[in-house]
């Protein structure tokens, strides 16, 4: 700094910073700039007093305005609920078929039902409602207890084989290991597998058909198309809840797996169940 450089043209000293021969003039800053700078410092301090900021030992200062982001979220949620409220009332007052007929209400119910599905149903039916072995896929067109909107609503309301609900969907398939011998089970399994054109032991089929008519047709029907009153699955289609093929069928005949679904009516309330039913109905496989 000892060799103070003075710019010849302006007569102002330079800061000593130089870029490619260009020097920075050491002009004084405008006074308003300095005041603005002080004002921002004051603003910064005032801000920490007006709003929650300073950490204390176990909490923090609350601020003069009493602002809290949590309270703001609660307010926003209340505002959103108020907007939703009118639609919830509408959905509450209408039957599920009325809702399906009204495009606006249907899309709102699908959104609400989709949200409820993600919380309550995905654990068994999967996030895409695609199910898995033993848990039905809700996208397809095969319905154990009926695929019409009100049938779906009934199933969700009261559950399947759910002990706590008097109106639950209920049926039991006997364990045929106690009724049929091993050979007979083989034969009837081969017959059932052959219904869908799957690989089957041909020599078993004739006997199997007789065993089926005697033991299985009562529930699954003489044509093996199933019975929705009893939740008896259609054995002639491409959808197998507990696996396809002779071996899987034999296992099911011997000692059947039967799904259980809780009744949701009491837990979620009528409106939420209605929305869920609309959502499931809108997945594309319903009737």
């Amino acid at each position, binding site marked *: *700094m*000892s060799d*103070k450089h003075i710019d010849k*043209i302006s007569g102002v*000293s330079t800061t000593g910073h130089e870029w490619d021969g260009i020097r920075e003039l*050491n002009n*004084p*800053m*405008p*006074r*308003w*700039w*300095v005041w603005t700078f002080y004002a921002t410092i004051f603003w910064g301090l005032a801000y920490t007093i007006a709003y929650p900021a300073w950490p204390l030992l176990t909490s923090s200062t609350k601020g003069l305005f009493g602002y809290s982001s949590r309270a703001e979220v609660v307010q926003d949620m209340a505002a959103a609920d108020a907007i939703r409220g009118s639609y919830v009332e509408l959905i509450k007052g209408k039957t599920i078929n009325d809702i399906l007929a009204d*495009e606006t209400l*249907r899309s709102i119910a699908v959104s609400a039902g989709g949200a409820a599905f993600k919380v309550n149903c995905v654990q068994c039916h*999967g*996030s*895409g*409602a*695609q199910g898995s072995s033993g848990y039905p*896929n809700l*996208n*397809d*067109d*095969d319905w154990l207890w009926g695929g019409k909107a009100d049938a779906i609503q009934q199933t969700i309301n009261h559950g399947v084989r759910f002990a706590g609900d008097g109106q639950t969907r209920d049926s039991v398939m006997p364990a045929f290991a106690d009724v049929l011998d091993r050979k007979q089970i083989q034969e009837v399994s081969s017959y059932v597998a052959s219904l869908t054109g799957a690989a089957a032991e041909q020599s078993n089929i004739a006997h199997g058909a007789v065993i089926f008519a005697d033991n299985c047709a009562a529930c699954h029907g003489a044509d093996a198309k199933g019975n929705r009153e009893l939740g008896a699955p*259609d054995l002639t*289609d*491409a*959808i197998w809840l507990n696996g396809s093929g002779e071996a899987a069928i034999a296992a099911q005949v011997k000692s059947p797996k039967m799904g259980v679904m809780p009744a949701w009516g009491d837990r979620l309330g009528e409106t939420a169940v209605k929305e869920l039913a609309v959502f499931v109905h*809108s997945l*594309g*496989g319903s009737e």
Partner: protein
Amino acid sequence: MVGTSIDACVSMTQTFLKTGAQMQDQSEIIRLEADAVNSARTRQPLYAPRRKIFPKRASGDFRRFKWIVMAITLGIYYLTPWLRWDRGPFAPDQAVLIDLANRRFYFFFIEIWPQEFFFVAGLLVMAGIGLFLVTSTVGRAWCGYTCPQTVWVDLFLVVERAIEGDRNARIKLDAAPWSFTKVATRVIKHTIWLCIAVATGGAWIFYFADAPKLVADFVTGEAAASAYMTVAILTATTYMFGGLMREQVCTYMCPWPRIQAAMLDETSLTVTYNDWRGEPRSRHAKRMALAGESIGDCVDCNACVAVCPMGIDIRDGQQLECITCALCIDACDGVMDKLGKERGLISYTTLNDYNANMALATAGGTRPVNPALVRDPDGRLSSKVAHISLRKLFRPRTLIYLGVWSAIGLFMVYALLTRNRLELNVLHDRNPQFVVLSDGSIRNGYTLKLLNMVPRQRNVRLSLTGSLPAASMSMLGSGNPEGGAFDIELEPDRLKTIKVFVRQAAGQAASPLQEFKFIIEDSAGGERADYTATFNAPETAQ
């Protein structure tokens, strides 16, 4: 303890020095070139108060041109939102409207949806290159004529002059002690300024909503809180920047001067004091001439300084503060006219011309400026003096800028005229990717977004094409009939979302991943849009 020992040390040293000095001859002491860094002689203030500027009213060609530019730019700003443009019953009838709530931008016959924002980006690119073009050609013309800061400061100065008088009256008033008259004048001036500021802030919000409705809502207190906020903020900034801060904004706050200065070259026009004919300046020209002294054209009347809204002296040379408003040219031309000399002592000049003329006046830089060298014996300016001409403005650099700027403009116009007003976007269901139905057929789900970007209802036909054998389609919500094509009604200027299921019969899948196309076609003929989608099937279904 420490303090004591240091004191002892110092006193020892002093004693030693004293003894040493006594031992030497005084003349042998060398004077060192040393200076305290904080001595009062060289100390500069860290900050300085603002020096008030009282620009005098100028008159002349450039001032007239600036009035016209001011009228046009302010006219555009205040009146545009009130222009109407009929778009039918389904779209607003405001010619220029930025409809943030519905995410639409209307500009006369053009309607821009958010996904077409690249048009706005293109305009910004054009604005950038336009700035290069203008600055490299005519210097800081943006600053001097069209910058809102310049225009509003000009407007505020008109008010100031009308209320308080021209330069001298204002200086007198400013220096006068506070009196009733002074307070009254000031109150009137600031009130009018505030009215202008409110009108400025007020006009801004009309670009974002229907102007006639908004003005009614605004007055009756029913407009949105954001409208009042915006007006309040813009009123404050207009009043502050245009009325109070003025040249401080340009000098200290604005980045443009720095950027523009970097874009000038030796062939750009800048407002220049031609000292090759002005110097040596003298207030006593006649006496000097009689004495046989060589004198320039500048009579040092300071008219150029008095009119300058930035408060600078252009005769000090090109400087950062100069916004090239050319008012000093007007002022000087007026004086030259009175003196019977050629105009252009201060003029728009390129650095090249200036250097050539300077070389002429100094005989190639060998002597001080001698105005006699640029004049013929009859006293007129020599024909060797370089002047600006239109031809000098056309040079490779400006032509390239002009070319790029025009090319982008033409491409945007082409894109605008040929763009599609019907669009289709498809989202394939990913969970589940496919569904096996009871008859073994495979089903995929798609969410289709159909964009009808014109303000009238249209009927389109949705169909499938491509290599997807034995496929049919169904639409959710309408009783799910299956078919190959559907007629869909599109509301004016709206996006319609529909859910479509595509089903392929069992055993028909050629691969787990098949491509096909959704097509929508305006039933009235004309526009169509398609989207290539994929159809997933299980690995085992082939």
